[in-house]
């Protein structure tokens, strides 16, 4: 029996990844189309990107989305890291099953249910919907993803490092700052980025929790998509993909730079 990559496997890989990436590649390609008709290639043009710069409503909603994503991803990282510590380090405390359940359920729960329940909460409490209610929704979703990522890192964590620091006379707080935090920082960063992009991309929860004046970018894109396929949507989509890609590559570069220090 032969192991390794046979032509059949290569074909499966090509087809599978083709299926995943060809639609995105086409979307990017046609954002540079001079023609307004999507199927007709009318030559290369950056016209649609220039048109975006004049679209103030779109820019305003992009700004709202960025602010929401920044605030909610930072909050989600703090809360998610705490939750991960509680799950990994605190043993069997009462209510652990419920706590873990509430952390894992939002990973798969249909977004319409999360969105509706949050909206009913805000209406019930008489809170005006806007920037902070979207932040609350996105933080809730994001913290669950941060928990899963940080928990995985904590579970494989060598605790003798912390014990060594304590034996050498470090206070628990100093141990946390000097030993624990640097070791889990890459996982926290990964979780934070995940929460950031989830927030930036979310349409359903934002629709339920936003109010007048806090229209997010995906809500604006959705409204345009419903009207039909336009090169402007391709252009804004390409920018969004490029932005997220840039952040991910940046994070990977930071992690690579940190590594020699950490292991040295």
């Amino acid at each position, binding site marked *: 029996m032969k192991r*390794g*990559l*046979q032509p059949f*496997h290569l074909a499966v*890989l090509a087809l*599978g*990844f083709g299926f*995943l*990436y060809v*639609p*995105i590649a*086409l*979307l990017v390609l*046609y954002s540079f189309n001079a023609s307004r008709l*999507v*199927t007709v290639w009318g030559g290369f043009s950056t016209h649609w990107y220039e048109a975006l710069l004049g679209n103030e409503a779109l820019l305003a909603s992009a700004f709202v989305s960025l602010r929401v994503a920044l605030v909610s991803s930072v909050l989600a990282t703090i809360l998610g890291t*705490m*939750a991960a510590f*509680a799950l990994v380090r*605190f043993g069997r*405390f009462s209510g652990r099953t419920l*706590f*873990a359940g*509430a952390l*894992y*359920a*939002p*990973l*798969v*729960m*249909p*977004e*319409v*249910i*999360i969105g*509706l*329940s949050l909206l*009913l*909460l805000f209406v*019930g409490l008489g809170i005006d919907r806007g920037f902070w209610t979207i932040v609350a*929704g996105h933080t*809730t979703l994001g*913290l669950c993803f941060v928990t899963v990522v940080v*928990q*995985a890192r904590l579970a494989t964590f060598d605790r003798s490092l912390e014990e060594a620091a304590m034996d050498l006379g470090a206070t628990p707080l100093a141990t946390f700052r000097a030993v624990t935090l640097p070791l889990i920082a890459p996982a926290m960063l990964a979780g934070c980025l*995940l929460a950031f*992009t989830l927030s*930036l*991309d979310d*349409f*359903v929860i934002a629709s339920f929790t936003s109010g007048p004046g806090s229209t997010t970018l995906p809500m604006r*894109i*959705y409204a345009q*998509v419903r009207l039909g*396929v336009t090169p402007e*949507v391709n252009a804004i*989509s390409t920018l*969004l*993909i490029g932005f997220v890609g840039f952040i*991910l590559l940046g994070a990977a570069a930071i992690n690579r730079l940190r590594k020699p220090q950490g292991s040295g």
Partner: protein
Amino acid sequence: MRPLRRLVLAIPALWLFAFFLAPFALVAKISVSRPLVAQPPYEPVFSLADGWQGLWDKLSRLTLDAYALVFSDDLYLDAYLSSLRLAAIATLLTLLIGFPLAHAMTRAPRQWRTALVLLAIAPFWTSFLIRIYAWIMILKDEGLLNHALLSLGLIHAPLSIFATEAAVLIGIVYSYLPFMVLPLYTALEKQDPALLEAAADLGATPLRAFWRITCPLAWPGIFAGLLLVFIPAVGEFVIPDLLGGSDTLMIGRSLWNEFFENRDWPAASAVAIVLLAILIVPLVLHERQQVKERAA
């Protein structure tokens, strides 16, 4: 527990209670309220000022009308059944595509594998909405697929895929494929190749070895993938709304329309509660599987 520990647990626990658990009680409460043309558009509204008598009066005004509506109107029943059917078909299709892909990934040279895993998850980092939009562009009657097939002479009239259930299935499979590939890959990668060699030495055909060894060992990954795709797919709103036709019924869409268009909040809440009741079994299975996985 030490005070600091208590705080580390209490803060996220309180957050989840306030923004995830408690809201479900509100959804349940509003599902037994009456719709009203007012702000908020339902009654009764409970308040601390009511006193016991007022509370009792208001409790007696609660009603199961919204549930009666959901269970008596064929439109809802059809929407639930059609959501379950479409999600089940799409989940199986995702498995049929995801399994060979994950399997081929484990056969790739070791130095490629990390890159392949990253490539498989990367679409998850790009906007859901944008990926669905890309398929509108491709599948529309005057879209890229028809354009390509027509100019190649493979078809003579455009295919109508857009605004049908087929488009919704393509959308779900495409969007959720990474959720299937990742657990499958993790399960398949752990398998010892020596097992297959042993099976071959004992005279098993590759197909039989695959069926008797690879599949059973990959079951935890298959099971995780099925749940990760099926549960959110049942309640999907964006995909049926953008890729489906006006006759494509899915319950997430019914909930959305009930809420945003008809402004019938009790009906939308009842739809949500019934959806949760349907999903409770797969949700509990998912929870147990997560707990097991994280504990391992």
